[in-house]
């Protein structure tokens, strides 16, 4: 078994993503190089998870957990839902900024990408091995941190 070296780790944990909107505006392909993010790295930026029920057994599947959390979010007062949605969006911008390599983006730079920011996040999540539903991209629903169906 080959010992992992830094150069191999860097090479195998980076990819290039085309920004559709930016490319259309520019008239040529505009791409960004990003690194893989860890699921825990993203989760640590998210707002606090809904409290687990007192009778929780610990056997909840990820799908059951997601359904419970979505139901809890829907039960929040409108102002809290808006606040939570805002926090989710900020987490998305932050994780994309952290993942950016070339060009290196700040969180504000990511916001200026507009719709490309959402598509970039989705592609990054897929590359990083955790699936994100379209519902999780900014409308306040929780991200699904499960691997895509074809993950190894």
């Amino acid at each position: 078994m080959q010992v992992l070296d830094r150069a191999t780790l860097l090479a195998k944990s980076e990819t290039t993503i085309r920004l559709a909107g930016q490319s259309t505006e520019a008239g040529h392909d505009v791409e960004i190089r990003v690194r893989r993010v860890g699921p825990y790295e993203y989760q640590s930026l998210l707002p606090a998870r809904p409290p687990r029920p007192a009778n929780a057994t610990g056997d909840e599947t990820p799908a059951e957990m997601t359904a419970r959390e979505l139901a809890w979010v829907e039960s929040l007062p409108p102002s809290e839902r808006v606040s939570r949605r805002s926090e989710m969006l900020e987490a998305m911008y932050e994780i994309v900024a952290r993942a950016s390599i070339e060009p290196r983006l700040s969180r504000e730079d990511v916001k200026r990408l507009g719709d490309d920011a959402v598509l970039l996040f989705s592609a990054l999540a897929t590359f990083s091995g955790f699936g994100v539903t379209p519902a999780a991209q900014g409308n306040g629903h929780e991200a699904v941190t499960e691997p895509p169906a074809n993950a190894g």
Partner: protein
Amino acid sequence: MLADFPVAVTLEGERYALIARDVSTATFFHGFPNSLPMTDCFRWGQREQQERDVDVLETWMFSLLPRVVIEPALTGELVHRLGDGAFEGVVGYLHAVGWILPEDLERAMAMEGAMGRAATQYARTLGALADELLPVSVATDRPRSFRSSIEPFVSVMAPNIRLAVREIAKRARVRPSLLWQSSISEFIYDWRVLLGDEIEAAASRGVPSEVMAAGVDE
């Protein structure tokens, strides 16, 4: 106690080895939560404390690899780049030093999510790892930081860890500071030999394991 050993991680479908070291008990437990899920102490706690302990545990797991892997030198970002491979590496290390027993590994494999996948992937690797030649001693003369070299020895210990150190030191008649400096595999071995049977026997009588580890008679 253990020579430097390989820990497998899967990256983009390919298997690689990280070279890990049997670090000091202090280094291993740096940042460790006071209670672990599924322990009596955890169940006794308030929900907010439970959630804090889970957060602390997850942070500890991802901070472990940079402390115990000597080749390549890992940073927090590099650990994140490993993706699920990071979990696999943590499981592999914990199994190698004796923290995870075979029955614990089976239980972990049955879990949903990243931990279950990591444990399953590690179990697949186990056979291949057993035949790997151990690396020759790896020189680690890279600069060390205060955080990695000093903090583990002077930071506040989780109360349950302090109790375990005190109890083992008392029974082994050694200074706690020597235990704290000994390798983690030695500490775990001492724990199992000196406390393991009593904790199991107490558990079968319904005495919480943390109470036994504190040396409090039921």
